[in-house]
């Protein structure tokens, strides 16, 4: 028996336990201890309790004082409750608005002979490459008091500003225009999938096309629509970049509140409670979304493409084209505004900058080159760690049916960045594992946060490799590990590379984790932009933002190319 155990302790098994340990240390324990903190109101040192009697005694004492006090303050001290309510309002509004905005575009993509589909699809990727705090800044450049849109508005005879950008409305608009692509493609799929023959039957029975759309097409696409609505809700709820830039002083939002409690006041109890609540809300909506799409996975690649009769009604098509163009145009204008601002000597008195200069780019390369380097190093570190973990996790999940790893590694999907950050800070704040304020914890946080996406990429390329290829290698004498290294690894390389680039990209974009966890020595580019904005160095911020966007676009293009030109 003992011998069997030792034999089973091959390199692979050890590796598997290492991965479990990683998730246990840096995901489960932090989440658990933040849950404890939310009840005790005081920081808890779980690792310390393991090595030191004294800490253990303290921890036990704290745990014996468990109370719901922190939670009750949620309802008494009006602040937290308002924050939660406001956040829920915001996310609901954004989810509904995005759905309304996107349905016509999705229909146009899926069911009409709209021209420029390729161009629109490309433009739709723009909102996704821009970090939200940069898009918020872009909207300020457009709709702020001295924004060019308002200059035009005033030139046309308007009074004051179109609307106050630093308000709930401003936040909603930024999120709608920069999150809508998340909902677009699932909805396009939903419209494509709904059975055309039913529509024809409806029309055959004499129904008008409008009636057919409302009573047949739309209901059939409903699960897809609801699911993407819930997705948008979660994305909006967890988004930190927009509110931190645009929320006015009197508007409490839960992410901002949690950030302030942590970074501003080191209020453990408050930030713990907010973290737990955010997590619960995100988890609930994530679960709801899964519930809706359960058993209704729309095969976008599988299955035979059904022949669709495209709507080519001239009026409908031209209205939809114009509409789609306008929606897609706004985020692009935002990016263009940042670009213009990065080249401007000064901008604000007129619709266009007063003059043009490259000095802001010179500034960022001379004074902020450290930030650029930091970003590259941090993203590189997260990339390496993600590649190793994601590759082996997908191996264990796909080939060894390791359901446990599948579950653990997808937990980060429901943890908002701010929550993860606060949980990690709390857990690693003191000895023996004092990692808070180090680049290591920052890299680990990035890695955990992006792990599910990376794993999705590696898993799909793993699944594309037939099992018998691996069996052939084993049959010829290779151990599982050698087979993985010499055969599976090289075959997965394109998928791994693509996933790795995406991790790199998202780390460079990442805001919440960077703001919370990055020590001054290791401030990445996103943090530099943020600080520049706070200091009022807008043009430098713009230049740095453009640099981030450029890096992101180039790398994402590379990743796409890699997955497309799979070598074999």
């Amino acid at each position, binding site marked *: 028996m003992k011998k069997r155990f030792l034999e089973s302790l091959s390199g692979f098994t050890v590796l598997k336990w290492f991965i479990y340990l990683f998730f246990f240390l840096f995901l489960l324990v932090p989440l658990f201890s933040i849950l404890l903190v939310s009840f005790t109101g005081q920081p808890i040192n779980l690792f310390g309790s393991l090595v030191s009697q004294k800490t253990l005694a303290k921890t036990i004492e704290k745990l014996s004082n468990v109370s719901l006090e922190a939670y009750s303050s949620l309802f008494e001290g009006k602040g937290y409750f308002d924050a939660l309510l406001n956040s829920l309002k915001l996310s609901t509004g954004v989810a509904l608005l995005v759905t309304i905005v996107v349905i016509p575009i999705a229909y146009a993509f899926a069911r009409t002979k709209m021209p420029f589909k390729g161009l629109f699809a490309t433009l739709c990727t723009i909102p996704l490459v821009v970090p939200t705090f940069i898009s918020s800044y872009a909207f300020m450049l457009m709709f702020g008091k001295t924004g060019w849109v308002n200059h035009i508005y005033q030139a046309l005879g308007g009074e004051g500003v179109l609307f106050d950008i630093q308000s709930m409305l401003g936040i909603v608009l930024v999120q709608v225009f920069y999150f809508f692509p998340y909902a677009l493609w699932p909805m396009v799929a939903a419209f494509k999938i709904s059975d055309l023959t039913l529509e024809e039957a409806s029309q055959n029975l004499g129904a008008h096309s409008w009636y057919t759309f409302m009573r047949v097409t739309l209901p059939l696409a409903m699960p897809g629509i609801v699911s993407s609505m819930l997705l948008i809700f979660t994305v909006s709820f967890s988004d930190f970049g927009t509110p931190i830039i645009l929320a006015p002083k009197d508007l409490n939002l839960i992410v901002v509140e949690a950030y302030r409690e942590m970074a501003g006041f080191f209020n453990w109890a408050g930030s713990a409670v907010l973290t737990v609540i955010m997590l619960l809300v995100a988890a609930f909506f994530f679960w709801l979304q899964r519930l809706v799409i359960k058993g209704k996975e729309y095969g976008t690649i599988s299955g035979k493409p059904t022949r669709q009769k495209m709507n080519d009604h001239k009026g409908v098509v031209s209205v939809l084209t114009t509409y789609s163009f306008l929606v897609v145009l706004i985020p692009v204008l935002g990016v263009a505004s940042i670009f213009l601002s990065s080249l401007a000597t000064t901008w604000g008195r007129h619709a266009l900058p007063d003059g043009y200069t490259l000095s802001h780019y010179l500034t960022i390369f001379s004074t902020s080159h450290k930030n650029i380097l930091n970003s590259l190093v941090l993203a590189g570190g997260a990339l390496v760690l993600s590649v190793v973990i994601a590759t082996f996790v997908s191996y264990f999940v796909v080939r060894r049916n390791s359901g446990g790893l599948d579950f653990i590694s997808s937990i980060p999907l429901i943890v908002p960045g701010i929550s993860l950050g606060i949980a990690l800070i709390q857990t690693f704040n003191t000895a023996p594992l004092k990692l808070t304020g180090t680049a290591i914890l920052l890299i680990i946080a990035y890695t955990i946060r992006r792990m599910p996406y990376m794993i999705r990429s590696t898993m799909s390329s793993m699944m594309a490799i037939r099992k018998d290829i691996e069996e*052939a290698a084993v049959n010829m004498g290779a151990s599982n590990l050698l087979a993985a290294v010499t055969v599976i690894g090289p075959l997965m390389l394109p998928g791994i590379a693509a996933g790795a680039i995406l991790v790199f990209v998202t780390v460079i974009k990442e805001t919440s984790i960077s703001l919370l966890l990055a020590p001054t020595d290791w401030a990445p580019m996103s943090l530099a932009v943020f600080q520049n904005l706070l200091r009022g160095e807008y043009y430098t911020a713009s230049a740095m933002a453009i640099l981030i966007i450029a890096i992101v676009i180039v790398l994402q293009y590379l990743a796409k190319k890699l997955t497309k030109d799979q070598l074999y």
Partner: protein
Amino acid sequence: MGSVRIENLHKSFNGIAALEDVSLDIREGEFFALLGPSGCGKTTTMRCVAGFESPTSGKIFIGDRDVSNVPANQRNCGMVFQSYALFPHLNVFENVAYSLQVRRFYQGGFGTKLAVLGNMLNRKLGRVDKETEKKVRDALDFVELGHLADRLPGQLSGGQQQRVALARALIMEPAVLLMDEPLSNLDKKLRNSMRVTIRRIQQKVGITTIFVTHDQEEAMGMADRVAVMQGGKLVQVDTPTALYSNPGSTFVADFVGSSNIFKGKVKGTEASGTVIQLEGGQLLTSAFSAKREDVEVIIRPESIRLAAGEPVDAGDKSIEGTITMSTYLGPSIRYDVQVGNMQIEVDKTFEAGTPLLPPGTKVYLSIDPHLVVIL
């Protein structure tokens, strides 16, 4: 080289039995086919031998070595997969060299390990040693693919891929060669020529071979012995000729070639054999069987003689019937004959110049008692 012995093999997946009490004794150098419809357990049996499935109970010996608990990579079974499972990122040479390289990796010192690993990851990172090089070249020449050594598998035809897979399995000098439906991905003409090629190579190397197939023609045409499987159990193990002429069950009779299968009753026993009463008439068989009264009678279509007009036999043992359909099959003609309520299939050798008998023709059938099987 070695024999393969399987003792009381059981395998179940999630409580559902896939193999039940399979015992086989495969002789050294034998070409042994596992034949059966899909889901019969033939592939599971082979995968147990290869070590990809671990038996729920039972033992497997290769030669004298009990391999039941030996990991798949230490069993020394060469395997040709249904899809060939060639490594798409390695060229033909590297595919064939793989097992030798793996061996060198495990047996060599640190330097060799590094060199071999480098070469396997990227051909520019290390050289294949001279001995391996020569062995691979020889193996490729053996399957007549020496000129394609630098091609990637994706650039080869199905038949060429098949031969690479074969060379790759043989070069490791395995104790036993396992082939899982290796011809099913080829078109019919290529399949026939590959059948001959595989059989010839197997004879030349003299390697014990287990061949899984659902195609009775393949099994019968290539194997020394065939094991017919159904529902996870062995039904019959025999030489192809014995299997054909003496099927042990109606399932085997039906699966191996076409058969007329009738229900009948034993009427009595004569000096020359048993007389059986069928619906359409009496039948004499030389087989003495059946204490039972109800029997099943199996008659191969080509075992029946057919004559139009007058009875062939003077005796009363011929049966009268009417042709309902005539099908020209090239070398033979298939007549469907209605006898009473029975439909009987009869194959008659086609003789040039003789016209087919049209449907409606009255015919007399007679059957050699030796060629009737009763169960």
